[in-house]
């Protein structure tokens, strides 16, 4: 009985509770450019926001609907291309405010999704995945053939500033574009979240879990998938429209298999099981791509390793990793994990950094131009042909590894302890 009242209370308060994350998100979005003021930081944040919308749209399929798509970039791309074409329709574009442009992108993405979805959503699983792969390849190939719409490999470009000024803003500066994208990010994320709470959104989960049972509840699994697919196409198109506004150019790369693969990677990295998973994935991946790639040309190698490790050890992704701790925190025992974590994770981090250093050194040793024996790693410049740095790196890796392995059982024990309710409390 006490249990019930508790959950009833929680439900009563859920309205205010569920608004909180959105308000915080809005505040963060407003404040971010005050902290990161450089134009490049804003450009990267714009890229992040666009990726977030796209990843959320993708997760409507993968996480919510259980449909694995290998060609989702085309819906974003086609929406974006449509927006650039609208930018180039001088009179029409001058008569609409730039803020509404992404809606057109969404409509075009949705249009294409309607056509493709009409035959691809009959089955989920491999059939769907393969059709999406085929359609993706087809449209990507068309981009160099159908020059009138896709502009060949150099793509098509426009100028966002020719739109009707919105409250006097002409979107000349990156920061103005940032706020436009942030606005759309909030709107789309909220809409996608709300979509998951509608009957068709709930049934998407049901169809993902058990399409046959859903059929015996009066729902056609196919049509449920179709509606999810179309909605996902719409939001992908919105992301495409924002891409068009931010970069003012769309090219073949917006459609190709690499982009489609990347978004799968992003979404899975973040975690498909939770609504906010793709958001984390998009942030992490964009940082990896733009920041880590400034530091090492092996960034794609690390990204690939990270991805494989995620699939193997944390199929729940980043979000799953975070949500794993909720039970312990609910029990009020989260703090008991801190110390064991430090004891295991610090050596493990040292081990991984040591391994990364080894990889960098091997790479430098093998591929640097002869005579170029100097390399800089973690602000230390040394000669990669000396023995000492190798000993240090190997030593760090091994020491980290064995310390982490020695402390791991203690961590496991603490984990078990933190997740079992204390007898006293019951």
């Amino acid at each position, binding site marked *: 009985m006490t249990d019930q009242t508790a959950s009833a209370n929680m439900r009563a308060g859920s309205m205010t509770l569920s608004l909180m994350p959105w308000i915080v998100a809005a505040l963060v979005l407003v404040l971010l450019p005050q902290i990161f003021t450089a134009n490049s930081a804003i450009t990267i944040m714009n890229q992040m926001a666009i990726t977030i919308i796209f990843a959320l749209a993708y997760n409507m399929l993968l996480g919510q609907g259980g449909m694995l798509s290998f060609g989702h970039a085309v819906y974003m791309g086609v929406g974006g291309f449509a927006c650039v074409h609208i930018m180039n329709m001088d009179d029409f574009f001058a008569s609409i405010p730039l803020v509404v442009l992404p809606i057109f992108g969404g409509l075009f993405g949705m249009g294409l999704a309607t056509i493709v979805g009409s035959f691809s959503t009959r089955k989920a699983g491999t059939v769907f995945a393969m059709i999406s792969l*085929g359609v993706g390849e087809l449209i990507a190939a068309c981009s160099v053939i159908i020059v009138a719409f896709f502009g060949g490999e150099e793509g098509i470009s426009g100028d966002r500033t020719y739109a009707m000024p919105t409250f006097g803003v002409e979107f000349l500066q990156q920061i103005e574009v940032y706020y436009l994208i942030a606005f759309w990010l909030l709107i789309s994320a909220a809409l996608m979240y709300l979509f998951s709470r509608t009957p068709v959104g709930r049934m998407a989960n049901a169809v993902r879990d058990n399409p046959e049972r859903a059929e015996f509840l009066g729902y056609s699994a196919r049509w449920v998938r179709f509606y999810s697919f179309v909605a996902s196409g719409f939001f992908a198109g919105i992301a495409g429209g924002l891409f068009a506004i931010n970069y003012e150019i769309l090219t073949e790369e917006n459609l190709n298999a690499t982009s489609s693969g990347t978004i799968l990677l992003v979404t899975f990295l973040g975690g498909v099981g939770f609504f906010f998973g793709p958001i984390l994935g998009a942030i992490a991946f964009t940082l990896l791509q733009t920041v880590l790639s400034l530091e090492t040309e092996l960034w794609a190698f690390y990204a690939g390793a990270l991805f494989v490790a995620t699939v193997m050890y944390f199929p729940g992704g980043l979000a799953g990793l975070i949500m794993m701790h909720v039970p312990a925190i609910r029990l009020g025992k989260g703090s008991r994990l801190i110390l064991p974590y430090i004891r295991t994770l610090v050596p493990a981090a040292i081990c991984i950094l040591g391994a990364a250093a080894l990889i960098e050194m091997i790479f430098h040793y093998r591929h640097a131009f002869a005579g170029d024996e100097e390399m800089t790693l973690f602000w230390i410049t040394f000669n990669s042909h000396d023995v000492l740095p190798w000993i240090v790196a190997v030593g760090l890796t091994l020491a980290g590894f064995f310390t982490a392995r020695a402390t791991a059982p203690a961590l496991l024990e603490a984990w078990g302890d933190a997740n079992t309710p204390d007898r006293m409390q019951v």
Partner: protein
Amino acid sequence: MDLVLVNLIDGLVTGLLLFMLSAGLTLIFSMMGVLNFAHASFYMLGAYFAYQISLAFGFWMGLLIAPIMVGLLGAGVERYGLRRVHQYGHVPELIFTFGLALLIEEVVQFIWGKNQMAYDIPEVLQFTAFSIAGNSIPAYKIFMIFISIAIFIGLLYVLTRTRIGMIIQAALSYPRTVEALGHNVPLIFMGVFGVGTALAGVAGVIAGPVLGTFPGMAFVLGSIVFVTIVIGGLGSLWGALVASLLIGWLTTFSKAYNLRMEDFLTFIGFSRPDPIWDSAWRDLWTITSPQVADILPYILMILILIFRPYGLFGKRDV
């Protein structure tokens, strides 16, 4: 007419090469129910391993050893990677192989760099076998045809005439029952995965010198292998063969003959817009068959999936 014959041979080579990849993939799929996205990456590894070995011991040792290395690696991937991911379901398995494909490409670049390797046809096979109307057929192509046909026959023999083949076939359909009969099904799975990837390795060894050994070689071939087995029907060896040859000839002939969309459109009664350069449909009118040759298999696959989801020879849904 002579050219038709030449194209038939060329298409056969392409098709058989594709078959060596798709045969392994389709076996792996029918057994484990997972499409191995990294299959073409094992093909690439085959080429690179063979290149490395050929530097020291020559081409023939490469042909012998590289596939074994690839097979062992494949078995290791199954044992320590896939088997672990298997418990999470099919989608994570698919995603795992997808990530593995990315990782292998990076590892290859890490070890061998980004340039094309100077991996070449062995001296003994560097001659023209025969010529048809000025078009020379290199001896190496004949060699490729023989190797792939030998592999197909061998595979067919093992699967249908030997005890281990029977067990594999049974394990494909009824893994639980076979396990109850005392066979080690995980070991069989691992073995088939190893053999499947080794086949891809053989394909890599013999294709590397003609199609080039470079980090993008897996990507170029990657998705077309899926297309092949989907068209042929998942799990069907004969289907894989037929689909491979079909794709080989389809792409070869559409590249070899300049069929123009314009002729087709005029034929079905449309009139050419004039001037063509202002028409919104200009790109449609100017399409030629070589332009679209490589995307024809994708169109074929989509049509197959819509109208015959179990493929040409498949017995069950994809």
